[in-house]
């Protein structure tokens, strides 16, 4: 007989073992899916790892995927820690990209020292503003933030499509004949390109550095500030927070805005580090916002773990997308991400509960005894 008992404290080694076990479990489960559809799992994983991490220039390309995942992962971690479910990182990232590219176009003749900080700031502000909408609705009307933040993802996606494809907006290139027929965004001036730092032959994007600082900041915020403490109390028990006199409404809006600011920064980094143009199709295909949820969950909402997990999942995405084609079908990356989440959720049971095989302690009646008593 299987019994499930609550642990009094989290098991320390399981906190590390569970995410690793989740990855292994997800790889095994997706191997079954690969086998069932007539693909060789071993060869697939080998190619995926090679393209993601080990081949020439692979790690630089992995960082390109890991940077937005790091920032959207932090966005999810910041909100989820308070049990506020910001599922809108996807849309907040789009808006961050709109803000950053807009300010870069406006300041195109200025020097990089002015343009780059302005882009970072614009990404933060627009992302935060977009996230503050579901935050305020949650705080003041008790509207379910999961659904509202998610709906705004679709609205944000339509907004960037509109800006480039269906309007003569500020973001759209209209100066040449081809760009009027085949819509595209304005390419930014070189001063708006974020510097990438070369470390041992690997190009580390500027956004990744900002993300690492942001992770440290988030860790400090939750660990040693009053704001973070109160947010944690709200997360653990909303009624306890209420009775303790914590202003829960403000905090919900603030945490949602903070979460959105991280995601918006991800959008700004997409523009400054990689794309240098507002590209609606590319941004929507990448679906970094949803990936961030997986990153945060696998990192168990620990900001430093988010960095490591973002690199790992960034490698899988990079490998998956670069191999995508006839013999490597699309959809494998999301399938794998979902399976990782499932395994992490199942593993969470082990962190919080003990699973015992056999009878509960102190109860020694055996069925055989009972039968004998019955017979007597």
């Amino acid at each position, binding site marked *: 007989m299987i019994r*499930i008992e*609550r642990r009094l404290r989290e098991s320390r080694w399981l906190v590390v073992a569970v995410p690793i076990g989740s990855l292994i479990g997800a790889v095994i489960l997706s191997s079954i*899916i690969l086998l069932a*559809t*007539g693909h060789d799992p071993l060869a697939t994983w080998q190619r995926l790892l090679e393209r993601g991490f080990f081949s020439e220039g692979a790690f630089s390309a992995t960082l390109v995927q890991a940077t937005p995942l790091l920032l959207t992962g932090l966005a999810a971690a910041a909100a989820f820690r308070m049990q506020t*479910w910001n*599922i809108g990182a996807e849309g907040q990232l789009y808006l961050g990209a709109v803000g950053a590219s807009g300010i870069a176009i406006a300041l195109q003749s200025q020097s990089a020292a002015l343009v780059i900080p302005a882009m970072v700031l614009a990404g933060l502000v627009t992302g935060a503003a977009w996230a503050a909408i579901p935050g305020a*609705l949650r705080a003041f*009307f*008790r*509207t*379910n933030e*999961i*659904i*509202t933040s*998610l*709906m*705004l993802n*679709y*609205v944000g996606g*339509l*907004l960037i*499509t*509109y800006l480039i494809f*269906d*309007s003569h907006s500020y973001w759209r290139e209209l100066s040449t004949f081809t760009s009027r027929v085949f819509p595209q965004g304005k390419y930014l001036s070189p001063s708006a390109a974020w510097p990438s730092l070369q470390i041992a032959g690997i190009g580390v994007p500027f956004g990744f550095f900002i993300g690492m600082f942001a992770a440290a900041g988030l860790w400090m915020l939750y660990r040693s500030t009053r704001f973070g403490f109160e947010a944690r109390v709200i997360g653990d028990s909303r009624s306890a927070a209420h009775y303790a006199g914590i202003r829960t409404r403000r905090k919900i809006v603030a945490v949602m805005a903070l979460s959105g600011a991280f995601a918006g920064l991800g959008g700004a980094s997409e523009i400054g580090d990689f794309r240098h143009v507002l590209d609606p199709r590319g941004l929507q295909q990448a*679906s970094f916002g*949803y990936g961030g*949820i*997986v990153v945060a*969950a696998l990192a168990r909402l620990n900001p430093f773990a988010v960095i490591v997990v973002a690199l790992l999942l960034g490698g899988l995405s990079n490998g998956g997308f670069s191999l995508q084609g006839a013999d490597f*079908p*699309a*959809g*494998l*990356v*999301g*399938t794998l*991400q*979902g*399976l990782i*989440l*499932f395994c992490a*959720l*199942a593993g*969470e*049971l082990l962190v919080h*509960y003990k699973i015992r095989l056999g009878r509960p302690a102190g109860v020694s009646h055996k069925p055989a005894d009972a039968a004998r008593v019955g017979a007597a």
Partner: protein
Amino acid sequence: MNNSLLVVIVASAIFYGTPLLFAALGELLAERSGVLNLGVEGMMLMGAVSGFWAVQTFGGPGWLSLLSGVAVAALVAAATSLIHAFLTITLRASQIVSGLALTIFAGATGLSSYIGHVANLSGKPAHHEFTAIDVMGLGDAPFIGPILFHQNALTYASWALVGLILLYLYRTRPGLHLRAVGESPATADAMGINVTAYRYIHTMLGGALAGVGGAFFSLAITPFWLDGMTSGAGWIAIALVIFAFWRPELALVGAYLFGAFSSLAFTLQARQVHLPPEVFSSLPYLMTIVVLVLVSSGWGRRRLGAPAALGVPYVREER
């Protein structure tokens, strides 16, 4: 008269509202048992791809092929929901994270897309599709003809389903038990009701209906298969359940309201109303937010109709 704007809008609202109705009814059943499943979008996409696959693969007369499509869609989506049921009911995982995981796993960049590409389904029209049935020759009747008597088989089935679920919930013993499980699982357990079984069954029923809703997209609306073709309908269905105060008859009203928002883009553009397409396309999403705010700020303050145990795992030892 039957071409007047009002008739066209109402008739197409019912058409576009049907998948929302199926998915919302399914989610309603799951939530009535206390299980919040945020994976509706993923389950709908699984239904869309598997239903389409079945119609392309199984031969036979059109009606049989379509029937098998719907059955396969329901079965596959129910199997998908079983993951959520196992994680949340047996392993007591967070229902919110598990539901999100289900949507990521099965969704537009996940398994549904993988299956569609492996089976090479994209870019081909369906061999058969659900077409409008003229019931008893009344399809041309003034005003009500196109609205009530010129819909497809799945729409008629959805009407029957609303009636069946109403009967089930309020007039049968299992329905009473279901409501008890959602309101107070400990009490239900003490009454001898198998809480776990009720939750498993209704989560999977919810999955099956979401699958049928998804198949409506690939077999009636488009009718071809495309990555992420439900584009948020699953999430709107979840919002609909809140909007309907967990009542099937109100889910029908809500589904057609949102069906109208979804169809407005096509109807008005066909009538030379010139606005950017994104304005129309964003309407269902924006209206979902508006309606949720209205519901949650007004009567919904008391969480009117929400099952008391919604989202809470039931553990016998910890009650």
